[in-house]
């Protein structure tokens, strides 16, 4: 019992923290600065708790009480770790971000924590409707965070688009859950898996259609083609720390649950692999094509996020349901998370008031004015581009290796080609930062916040994770 309790501790801490932050917000005693530290503290403690829960093997905590709803495995634990880390660094970036932008209230941090709660749940839940609830907790919190700056027209637009399409996808998810319930008599992953194992997959159209709709919802949240279109506008409209949070934490949670769902049964997985193959290829190439045409950084990063979704789909295609460890996916997620979080942490303090620096040209000559920041951004970009010795390279290496090992050579080749195509837009920023004369002095960027520190920690993480992949 205590063991189960300890395993759930991070989740409990986060939930309790979220609620208490919300309560605190009701009293006007706490400044947002303090709230940010509280939030960081909550994430930090949860992170350490999660880290200390290093028990291998699958555990189903409170099996009878929770009716097999949660399963904790190494996979979910590490995914949780990544999410908590994302939350921590988002809070850190936000702390500095709100020194220049003045629309924050204490609820902001409460909502970050709430969404982390949803994400953590998402990694662990093993039942469709719980997935739906967790998904909605996470999404609703993020919708709010996206539209937090009420005076900002683009933020309002972003939240409108996100909410509508998200709810739309949610409707598909419910329909899918209903069909699976109809087909497999249950919404538990394990029961579904068992049912599929006994009756076959394509023999049961309801299951096909249901799992299809569920996948659509996942693909939507992960921004895979053709469900990707929202992501660019939403990232663009959201504030930098939140964009980073969406790009990393949300994606981690989605892929965790995606993988958990797919590996419920091998025939379920293998039936979808052929289709995921196309999703993956199209996602990578469309992402690249969108990214190359972008002039603003956030939109470019959003598009590059689509490409990374494509890689993660490769990894998903290559996982095997028997003997699933998810290491490749997790490593890639971690590598992607540190890089992207770092990027947005840097944008949080370099963006200036109202994120006035948004295009590639606005960052011209950054290396001359803020050399360390430029170096950190370069490291993040290299990691995203998958150039050694960064984490991104190792991630890509593992993904491609697992793809080839799974016999998906064509997919691996497409992945490689897509990596080549992605060079243009990553290099473009490096070139802007380094090879052009500075036109902006970046004097208004505060450097006394925590975001720069976070940026450098993340930059170090990129290299450390890249050089010692064993630690993940």
């Amino acid at each position, binding site marked *: 019992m205590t063991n189960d309790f300890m395993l759930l501790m991070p989740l409990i801490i986060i939930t309790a923290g979220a609620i208490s932050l919300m309560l605190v917000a009701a009293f006007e005693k706490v400044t947002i600065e303090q709230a940010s530290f509280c939030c960081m503290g909550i994430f930090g403690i949860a992170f350490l708790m999660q880290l200390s829960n290093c028990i291998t093997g699958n555990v189903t905590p409170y099996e009878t009480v929770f009716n097999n709803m949660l399963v904790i495995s190494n996979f979910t634990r590490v995914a949780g770790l990544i999410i908590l880390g994302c939350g921590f660094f988002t809070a850190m970036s936000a702390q500095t971000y709100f020194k220049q932008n003045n629309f924050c209230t204490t609820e902001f941090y409460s909502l970050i924590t709430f969404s982390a709660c949803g994400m953590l749940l998402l990694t662990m839940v093993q039942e469709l*409707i719980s997935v*739906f*609830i967790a998904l*909605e907790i996470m999404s*609703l919190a993020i*919708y*709010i965070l996206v*539209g937090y700056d*009420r005076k900002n*027209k*683009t933020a*309002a*637009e*972003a*939240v*409108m*688009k996100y*909410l*509508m399409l998200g*709810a*739309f996808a*949610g*409707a*598909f998810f*419910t*329909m899918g*859950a*209903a*069909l699976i*319930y*109809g087909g497999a*008599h*249950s*919404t538990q992953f394990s029961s579904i898996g068992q049912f599929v194992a006994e009756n076959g997959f394509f023999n049961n159209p309801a299951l096909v259609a249901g799992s299809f709709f569920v996948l659509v919802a996942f693909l939507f949240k992960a921004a895979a083609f053709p469900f990707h279109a929202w992501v*660019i*506008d939403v990232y*663009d*409209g959201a504030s930098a720390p939140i964009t980073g949070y969406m790009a990393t934490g949300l994606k981690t949670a989605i892929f965790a649950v995606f993988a958990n769902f797919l590996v419920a049964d091998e025939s379920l997985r293998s039936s979808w692999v052929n289709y995921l193959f196309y999703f993956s290829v199209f996602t990578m190439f469309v992402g690249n094509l969108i990214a190359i*045409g*972008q002039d603003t950084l956030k*939109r470019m990063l959003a598009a590059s996020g689509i490409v990374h979704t494509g890689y993660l789909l490769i990894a998903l295609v290559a996982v095997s349901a028997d003997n699933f460890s998810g290491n490749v996916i997790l490593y890639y997620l971690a590598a992607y998370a540190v890089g992207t979080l770092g990027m947005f942490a840097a944008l949080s303090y370099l963006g200036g008031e109202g994120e006035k620096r948004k295009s590639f040209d606005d960052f011209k000559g950054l290396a001359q004015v803020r050399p360390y920041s430029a170096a950190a951004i370069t490291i993040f970009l290299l990691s995203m581009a998958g150039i050694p010795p960064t984490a991104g390279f190792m991630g890509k290496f593992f993904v491609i290796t697992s793809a080839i090992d799974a016999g998906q050579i064509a997919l691996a080749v497409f992945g490689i080609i897509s990596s080549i195509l992605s060079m243009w837009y990553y290099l473009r920023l490096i070139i802007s930062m380094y090879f052009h004369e500075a036109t902006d002095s970046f004097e208004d960027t505060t450097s006394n916040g925590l975001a720069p520190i976070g940026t450098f920690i993340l930059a170090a993480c990129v290299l450390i994770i890249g050089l010692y992949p064993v630690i993940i």
Partner: protein
Amino acid sequence: MIQSYLTVSILLFCIGIVGVISRRNVFTVFMSIELMLNAANLAFVTFARLHQTMDGHVLALIVMAVAAAEAGLALAVVILLHKHKGQLDTNVFSLLKG
């Protein structure tokens, strides 16, 4: 009988989809999504009847709760949007593009 109910469910679901993709009024779109959720609920309840388990009912219940939560937020967003533009046309909100 089960098939008939399911057909209704599917029909409503598809009408919901058509509503979402063909209308520009925020309210209509939003209610179309609600319609889709209702269609799913009908499917849940129908399947509950088919399988003789009440899990479907519980699921429908939860979906309703989620729909309510979503509705709350969605209406808040609608108000926010209305404050900005005074209009409820989704196409008005297209600053972010390209």
